[in-house]
């Protein structure tokens, strides 16, 4: 099972280590700074941390000694456009929302997703970054709009384990887009997603879908899941089509989804009330788990607060480890829970951390 748990929070990066008696706090880095995303190598030596400083912009730091020391790198930036210094609409990176390794056959190569929605690529372990022009120039991008934030946001990057040239990304609100040639060309891959919040004729438009998070099953990569603003969706045919799962018993709304690494039928969701208000249904914290591809769900609540709970779990706040048994989730009210049995029971790690933006196991 994963040995380390990294908590990217509103006030720094917290690292926990698994021991004989459970998880213990090992380090706090970037104390006081909002950490929007963290990426960790399997050997836990290389760690990338994205900061979203309120005054000073998006920053990127890297450690190559397991967090012992840190180096600031040049963060991804949009190319300067002519007259951009006077043009309010000229793009600038406002946040790093996603970071993923580009594949086992591409060591030191990394994808980053940003707000406004774009992907950047580094082939030199984060030393330099290039805007992916193919996605940026995609004509359908003109239809994308912000969800939750004014900016569009690219939050999901799924690198296919069968071929690292096959990468699917998801955007709020811009649906799913797929490249099969390493990012040279992209095509829309969100057919079947539905948005009830749009005018009737536009509800099936794949270009405006508010995917909150998309995950792909490592062992069965033909299968992907999306927690969408409008509900839960699943694709079992390599993103050719999506179909809605309507059986979630507590709520179909939420931000996060995690898929079992070995079993594409097993996935976890953290439900909430939408839209005008957002809080756990009946103020009770639960996790919804399906083990049959969405036909039925278990409602997991053992170890989770069942009264006056206001914890929301953001899209990157729920993770599963490589065994499929280890889970962790972190909330907007600063609670983090872990499970070693697939979510059947949860243990509170802390109830008083800063708001949690993202978690990683390694």
């Amino acid at each position, binding site marked *: 099972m994963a040995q380390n748990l990294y908590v990217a929070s509103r006030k720094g990066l917290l690292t926990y280590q698994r021991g004989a008696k459970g998880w213990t706090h090992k380090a706090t880095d970037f104390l006081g700074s909002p950490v929007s995303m963290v990426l960790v190598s399997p050997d836990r030596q290389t760690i990338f941390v994205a900061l979203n400083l309120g005054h*000073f912009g998006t920053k990127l730091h890297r450690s190559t000694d397991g967090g012992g020391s840190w180096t600031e790198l040049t963060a991804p930036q949009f190319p300067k456009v002519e007259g951009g210094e006077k043009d309010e609409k000229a793009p*600038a990176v406002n946040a790093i929302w996603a970071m993923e390794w580009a594949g086992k056959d591409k060591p030191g190569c990394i994808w980053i997703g940003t707000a406004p929605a774009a992907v950047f690529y580094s082939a030199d372990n984060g030393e330099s970054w290039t805007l992916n022009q193919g996605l940026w120039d995609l004509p359908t991008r003109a239809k994308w709009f912000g969800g939750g934030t004014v900016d569009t946001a690219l939050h999901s990057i799924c690198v296919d384990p069968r071929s690292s040239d096959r990468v699917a990304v998801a955007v709020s609100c811009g649906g799913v887009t797929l490249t099969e040639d390493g990012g040279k060309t992209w095509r829309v891959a969100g057919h079947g997603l539905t948005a009830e919040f749009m005018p009737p004729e536009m509800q099936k438009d794949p270009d405006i879908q508010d995917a909150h998070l998309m995950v792909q099953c490592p062992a069965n990569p033909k299968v992907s899941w999306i927690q969408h603003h409008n509900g839960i969706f699943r694709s079992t045919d390599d993103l050719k089509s999506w179909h809605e799962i309507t059986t979630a018993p507590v709520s179909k709304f939420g931000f996060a989804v995690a898929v079992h690494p070995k079993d594409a039928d097993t996935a976890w969701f953290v439900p909430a009330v939408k839209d005008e208000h957002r809080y756990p249904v009946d103020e009770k914290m639960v996790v919804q788990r399906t083990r049959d591809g969405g036909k039925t769900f278990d409602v997991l609540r053992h170890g989770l607060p069942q009264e006056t709970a206001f914890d929301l779990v953001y899209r990157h706040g729920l993770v599963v480890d490589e065994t499929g048994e280890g889970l962790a989730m972190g909330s907007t009210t600063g609670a983090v829970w872990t499970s070693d049995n697939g979510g059947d029971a949860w243990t509170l790690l802390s109830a008083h951390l800063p708001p949690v933006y993202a978690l990683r196991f390694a």
Partner: protein
Amino acid sequence: MAKVFFTSHLRSVAPDGGVEAAGATVAAALADVFARYPTAKGYVLDDQGRVRLHIAVFVDNVHVRRDILEYPLRGDSEVYVMQALSGG
């Protein structure tokens, strides 16, 4: 030459205390400083070279709110690059 001061919150990337800078505008003076402190540039200006939304610039005790980069400097101007309270 004008003198540019940075908020202490930029101490890790910008000069401590005032630093002399050549230039007839805020933009030119900042460019002169950033040539010597390149990391500081991305903390003050965004991808397009605009002053970040939550950075406040004062020149000779005037809070410059518009066209900050074009604001003219005298030979003895003092420029303060501060963090705006709005970004906290």
